[in-house]
């Protein structure tokens, strides 16, 4: 894994826009409490979710 997305849980409000933007299935998930999880081993680090997030809660590093 070179780079992968990370979520700042303090900033994320669970809007799910990142999930609808990620081209890769099974990478970003959301649970019933609206917590976002990222499968970093599968993330390709494209950064689309970072651009989509209105709360600036995601980074790729």
């Amino acid at each position, binding site marked *: 894994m070179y780079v992968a997305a990370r979520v700042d849980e303090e900033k994320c409000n669970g809007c799910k826009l990142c999930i609808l*933007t990620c*081209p890769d*299935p*099974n990478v970003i*998930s959301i649970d019933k409490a609206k917590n976002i999880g990222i499968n970093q081993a*599968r993330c390709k680090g*494209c*950064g*689309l979710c970072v*651009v989509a997030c209105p709360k600036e809660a995601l980074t790729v590093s």
Partner: protein
Amino acid sequence: MSLRILKPTAEFADLLPKEYQELVENGPYHEQKGISDLGTFKEIIEEHPHCAGCGVALGVRLVAASLPAPADTLIIGTPGCSFFGLAQTALNYSNTAFGNQNAVASGLKRMLKIRYPDRNKDVVVLVGDGGIADIGLDMTLHSWLRRENITTIMVDNEVYGNTGGQESGMTKEGQVLNMAPEGKKFPKIPVFELARTSGCAYGARVTVASPRKIGEAVKKAILVAREVGPTYVQIYTPCPTNLKFPPDQTVKVAKDAEAGYYSFEEFISPEAQEYMQKTTKAV
């Protein structure tokens, strides 16, 4: 693919890879799933090999989540980047020789109607712009002119992505590509207009910047194809690798196109309109 087919016998359940077990337990079979449920269920067994930021992969993913009856859907593909996306999904998938997709789909749909007279089996062609607008254009148009009950979905990245960047009929005029160094010399083939004039009962033109519109268009297209006639959905799915923009800009590129030459468009025949009103009332 139906859960009944996928489910292993109890003796073998523990021997299967974890990813497979997860798909059985949490795949898209159990209740009606839609685009807004993405992130809560297992979509495919494993990852796919597309480039980072691939618009085609995003388009395929959104289409797969929009199917009204995934277990009774047969996806017809053809060579191209669109075909990798489904290689490992939970869906029935059949590949075809490049360009033959609408001919094969027509035959399979007719066969499924005979085999399952009391059950809807949705046959959905999901292929690239080269597959439809170039090598498969005659078979696509003829399936529409014959009024076959199939849905055709184009993931339009405006290039032959899979083979390294040749121009397709859907490439924009003037576009320079790896293997079109002087730029394309004629405009995009108006496949959307051809769908309208060749017998499609419903058509929509959307981009990956509007996932919910994709969801609605795909659902409508598949329902109309069951009873009324052929349908067409054209999705703009930009390719960062060949169009040479940064992979985090795919959705922005689609959004910009949506504000211009790739604006949202839809058409529906009076018969399809009536059918949709009846079905939505019945639900």
